[in-house]
C-alpha cells in the first residue's frame, strides 16, 4: 500500500497515465482513502492546466520581431515571369 509521500512522487506520472495497471490500482486505492492526496492531485492538475494556458500566450513574439525574423528568411528570387 502506498503512503502519501510515495503518492506525491508518482503524481505527475499519474496525470500522464504512465503506470502499469497494478500501480494504477494502488494509486486509486490510496486516493480513495486519502483526502489530502486527492487535494494534492487536484492542485497539481489545476496548476498544470492554468500554467499551460498562460505559457501559450506568454511564449509568443511581438509583431515587430516577427517582421524582423521574416525579413531574414531568404526568399526565392523572383523570375522575370513573376514580375
Amino acid at each position, binding site marked *: 500500500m502506498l*503512503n*502519501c*509521500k*510515495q503518492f*506525491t*512522487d508518482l*503524481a*505527475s*506520472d499519474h*496525470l*500522464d497515465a*504512465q503506470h502499469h495497471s497494478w500501480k494504477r490500482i494502488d494509486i486509486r486505492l490510496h486516493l480513495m482513502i486519502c483526502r*489530502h*492526496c486527492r*487535494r*494534492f492531485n487536484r*492542485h*497539481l492538475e*489545476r*496548476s*498544470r*492546466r*492554468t*500554467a*499551460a*494556458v*498562460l*505559457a*501559450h500566450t*506568454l*511564449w*509568443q*513574439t*511581438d*509583431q515587430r*520581431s*516577427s*517582421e524582423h*525574423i*521574416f525579413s*531574414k*528568411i*531568404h*526568399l526565392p528570387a523572383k523570375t522575370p515571369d513573376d514580375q
Partner: protein
Amino acid sequence: MSQFINDPKFIARLQSGDNSAFKSLISAYHSKLLIIARAIAGDVFAEDVTQEAWASIYKAIAKFEGRSSLSTWMIQIVSNEAKSRLRREKRHSSYGDIDEVVQSVDPDNFNSSGHWSNPPSHWDINTPELMLQEDQLRQCIEHTLTVLPENQKAVFLLRDVEQIALSEIAETLIISEANVRVLLHRARLRLMATINHYQETGEC
C-alpha cells in the same frame, strides 16, 4: 490546445504563399521553437538554429501534408536543425542525461511513516478559470514559467502546452523518456508551489 494555426483555411493561406499568414505563424511559434532549440543545442546556437528552421518551414510549407499537426511538424523541423547543428559543431546535447532523482515535495510535510503531517491547504481560487482572472497570480505564474530551467521549460511546453507523447518528446529533445518524466514532474511541482504560495500569502 486549440489554435488558429491548425485551421485548414489558415494552412491553405500559408501554402498559397500568403506572407502575412506566415508572419502570424512566426508570432505564435517563434518563442516556442526557440525554447526547443535552446534545450537541444544550447543558448549559443539557439537563435541561429531557429532562424534556419523558419527558412526550412517557409520552403517546405507547400509540401505539408497534414499527417501530423502543423505545430508538431514545425517542432520536428527545429529539432532536426538543432541536432544537425550539434553534429556540425561536433558537440553533444547541451543538457544530456540528468540525474533521475525525483524532486519531491518538501519531506518536512510528511511524518516518519510517509503520511502528511502538513497537508496541502485549501485553495480559495480553485479553478483554472478563476486563477486566470487574478492578475497578480498570473504574473507569479508567468515569472515562474520564465525562470524555469531551459530543459524543464521545453518539456513542459511539449507535454502540457502541445500535448505531445512522452516518447516523442524524448526523441525530439534527445533525452531518455525517464528524464522527460523527471523534468516534467519538477516543472509541474515548481508551478504548483508558486500557485500554492500565492494562495497562502497573496504574494509571489
